[in-house]
């Protein structure tokens, strides 16, 4: 059984078929890429998978469970976490607190325990600190734990967003253009990090990216999206040498 099964997924906005009959299967532990020209509907697929939009048609299964039409919160609890194309951090919170916010549903104590500082508060907060620092270390951000997230340089903000998503302990991680705005060195480093995350956290990853070096370098399989529809799907090397893909990117 695939980790993620999507069939016949469609949504239109005012008559425009933003995503039309989309399908995809991702196996557990896969590093999967989604590419396509600007406006092809890639981010819309992410928004459908995470419940930001409700699909007009189609079915989404995560690990065998139907999650179609569920709310963003329920879908996150079911095991999908994501990052955003335009970074969305909690800018006025510290780097550490950003990750701790991600741990919100896994380490809990009551409001009263928090206000009255009952023993459970100290115990759980300590667990959260330890777990958050562990995750930050993976991204080499542990030295900046006390900084405000908004003050981090761009590349580190992208990493922190991944760290926060991982803190929710997902089965499937969606990365929306993780290398956007990075220089070649940073991109190279990010590729290593993504691979490490997959191995270390035993994660399944779906990413949207324009950087063909990154896509070709780390993704095992690809889906190419064009005008909201699947153009082609398969092993990375095969897809990237497909003439139809080259045409879609470069035009006739």
């Amino acid at each position: 059984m695939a980790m993620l099964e999507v069939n016949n997924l469609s949504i239109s906005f005012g008559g425009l078929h933003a995503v039309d009959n989309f399908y995809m299967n991702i196996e557990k532990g896969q590093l999967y890429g989604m590419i396509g020209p600007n406006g092809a509907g890639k981010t819309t697929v992410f928004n459908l998978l995470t419940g930001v939009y409700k699909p007009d048609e189609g079915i989404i299964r995560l690990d065998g469970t139907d999650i179609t039409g569920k709310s963003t919160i329920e879908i996150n609890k079911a095991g999908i976490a994501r990052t955003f194309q335009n970074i969305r951090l909690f800018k006025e919170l510290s780097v550490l607190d950003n990750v701790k916010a991600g741990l919100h549903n896994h380490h809990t104590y009551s409001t009263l325990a928090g206000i009255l500082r009952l023993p459970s508060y100290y115990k759980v907060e300590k667990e959260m600190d330890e777990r958050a620092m562990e995750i930050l270390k993976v991204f080499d951000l542990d030295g900046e734990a006390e900084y405000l997230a908004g003050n981090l340089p761009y590349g580190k903000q992208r990493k922190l967003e991944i760290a926060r998503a991982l803190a929710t302990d997902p089965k499937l991680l969606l990365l929306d253009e993780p290398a956007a705005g990075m220089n070649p060195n940073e991109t190279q480093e990010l590729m290593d990090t993504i691979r490490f995350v997959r191995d270390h956290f035993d994660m399944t990853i779906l990413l949207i990216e324009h950087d063909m070096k990154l896509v070709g370098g780390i993704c095992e399989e690809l889906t190419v999206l064009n005008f909201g529809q699947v153009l082609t799907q398969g092993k990375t090397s095969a897809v990237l040498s497909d003439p139809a893909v080259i045409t879609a990117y470069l035009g006739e």
Partner: protein
Amino acid sequence: MKKNSKIFRQNLITYGMVIAAFIVVQILQSTGHLSSLFTGLLVPICVYVILAVSLNLVVGISGELSLGHAGFMCVGAFAGAFFTKCTQDTITMVPLRFALAVLIGAIAAAIFGILIGIPVLRLKGDYLAIVTLAFGEIIKNILNVFYIGRDSNGFHMSMKDQFSLGMEADGKMLLGGPQGITGIPKNSSFLAGIILILITLFIVLNLINSRDGRAIMAIRDNRIAATSIGINITKYKLMAFTISAALAGMAGTLYSHNLATLQASKFNFNTSILALVFVVLGGIGNIRGSIIAAVVLTALPEMLRGLSNLRMLIYAIVLIAMMLFNWAPAAIDWRSRLKERLKHSRANGKEAA
């Protein structure tokens, strides 16, 4: 962790400031250095400090603009005073009765907070603000036409006038429409005010530095990202709003037990705005700043009383000037440049020496 101890120290400073202020006032009072004017201001200052801190929870921590905070204060003031009037003969231990009144004021305001919050918190930004303004005005208006009396047959209620209550001869008015509640025992004191401030600070500061506070601030910083990591927006917005309402209700009870007569018209739009002024002037999200702003701005008009007609004018000018000084990007630049220069000249001075 290092950070926790830093927050702990910051919070201690805030509590310490309040306690120190209490001690200083006590010393001044016992040595006769406190004017009767200022003595009269002590309880109102405590009321506005609590109000400002509670509003900061909504505006600064939760990031929503509320223009109807006086409404919650009003509910608390009336609920608390009403309770005191009803139990004046049965509960004779004053501190206990007053503590219960405060509790009831807080609970009543919290109930209104939930009732209003559930439909309203779906709205965003200025629309939320205007609806809170509307609720504040509605609460005030309705209390203005409410009559409640009690006689040997029990409670009587009317929304028309005193005579439609149809009370027996032994009936006593409890709530008299625009006349409000009269003859409230003066149970508030500076000590009670300080204790309530400390309770407020304890609740707000501990909430902010907990899992729930983190969720509330995460939503403030980015709604969409917060839902993406499974944080329930409505729940936490409502939590901040309700706790804030409860604390404002507490302030209201303290306020009403400092006056003999309580009228709903006191809790108008200007009171809500005043609380907002404290919050913004003291620094949005800065709890200690709210306290200082509330103290200074409550005391300032009284300090200027000698200037009679000019005092509100000066108040307005000071307010505008302070806002420009604190918030205008040009002023902020200028201040940081000035600081740099001072640092330089001091460093140079040291070298010379």
